[in-house]
């Protein structure tokens, strides 16, 4: 089991999708980083991602790693956000068999996993098809 700090320090990214935007060239990084790989700048502003985008690819996981066995089958995908960056996450609240590349997605706050019966419950973002679009 990991120390609480391992998960706690990721809260800004996992709960609020905070990203770093390079002040010089505008490139967005999720998670944020200390140096821009595009222009070398070290100055960033913190922005919140919209969580809205298009499904770039996905899979339906049927053989899970430790800790996810009770969730199978579950969809995991890469969503190209409207800001132009790709983010990976589970896709939920849908029949995964009906998903298609190009589907519009929005982001929801969900329980991701838990470390056994007495461990930490981890939360974060998951993607949901945006039927309204």
């Amino acid at each position, binding site marked *: 089991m990991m120390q609480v700090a391992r998960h706690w320090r990721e809260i800004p990214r*996992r709960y609020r999708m905070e990203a770093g935007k390079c002040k010089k060239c505008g490139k967005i990084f999720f998670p944020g980083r200390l140096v821009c790989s595009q222009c070398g700048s070290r100055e960033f502003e913190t922005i919140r991602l919209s969580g809205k985008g298009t499904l770039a*690819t996905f899979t339906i*996981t*049927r053989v*899970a790693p*430790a*800790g996810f066995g009770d969730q199978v089958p*579950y969809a*995991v995908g890469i969503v190209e956000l409207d800001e132009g960056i790709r983010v*990976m996450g589970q896709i939920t609240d849908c029949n995964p068999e009906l998903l298609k590349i190009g589907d519009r997605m929005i982001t929801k706050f969900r329980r991701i996993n838990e470390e056994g019966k007495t461990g930490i419950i981890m939360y974060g973002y998951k993607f949901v098809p945006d039927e309204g679009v």
Partner: protein
Amino acid sequence: MRDVAIIGIGLMKWGELWEKSIRDIAVEAALNCLDDAGVDRVDAMTIGTMSSGLFTGQEHLSSVVADYLGKKFIPATRVESACASGGLAVRTAFLEVASGMSDYVLAVGVEKMTDVSGEEATYALATAADQEYEAFHGVTFPGLYAMMARAHMEKYGTTREQLAEVAVKNHRNGSLNPNAQFPFKVTREQVMASTMVADPLRLLDCSPITDGAAAVLLAPADEARKLDKTPVVITGVGHATDSISLCGRSSLTRLDVVAKAAEAALKMAGKTIKDVSFAEVHDCFTIAELIVMESLGIVPEGQAGPAVLDGMTALDGSFPINPSGGLKSKGHPVGATGVAQICEAVTQLRGEAGERQIKDAKVALTQNMGGSGGSSVVHILEVR
């Protein structure tokens, strides 16, 4: 830099080796290598293992293997680059010989994967992905490659049949390799009806969980030419890194890290991909072999599927790929794979591959990959 040759190769029968420990299999391959070379001299050793710690609880493996090999006190260095750890061990040994630091350097690759449950093995492998932004969400390695496969199918029209043919071809080659974990043929229908692991990839699209080791002995080329064996010279070495997270890379359907490593290796060898006779590539999943073919420039992007279906990469094709059976049939003890690829290349270049011998094998390329494309090591080998 001095020219560096491979003077010995050591393999062993791979599989679920319940009765053997990680130190047993590493030493077995190393001894086979020294016997093949006809030399019992090791000045230094490099050892590639992805995660002996998570798979067996044993770190500090370089000293364990040196001791059990009867070579106490030699400098031994463990290197790690996920599933490219073996290729990196060979590169590190190459640098040690080329620099003049040591003369006879042994590179060992090893992984003992069946001492933990399947679930724990899946977890250990997933540590090669981004822990906080990929593995956190429950993605697996089959899942990462499945996402690449789906994107490739959508963009280029790559078909399920084309993916299955990679497994069929590699098992056909592996059926001729006595060291392979699964030395039998499979049909396209069997692949396409096997259990779904991560859509669209099925069980027979995936390389297996394997215990195994491989070793090569490197020496200055001038020394090698005095020995009996056909000296195979490492003429090109390329190594590159990229974002370890799939969504952090510029393309979901191309592996830039492979292109970069190959470009460096071919440049060093003074060759182009057209000069290469055959390749051993990292087919951890069927889709990986197709994308690697395209990223190496063997075929244009999107053309690998039809090329495999046409027989281009078969043993008697115009560009044979994975004559050993690849990771798919031979097995994939992750840290050993990159070293075993070199062993097969040497076997082919020496003309000792028997039933799976490729005609006129002059220049070999090996491509070893870490994770879903976060690192890659490419070697060019020639008889000189």
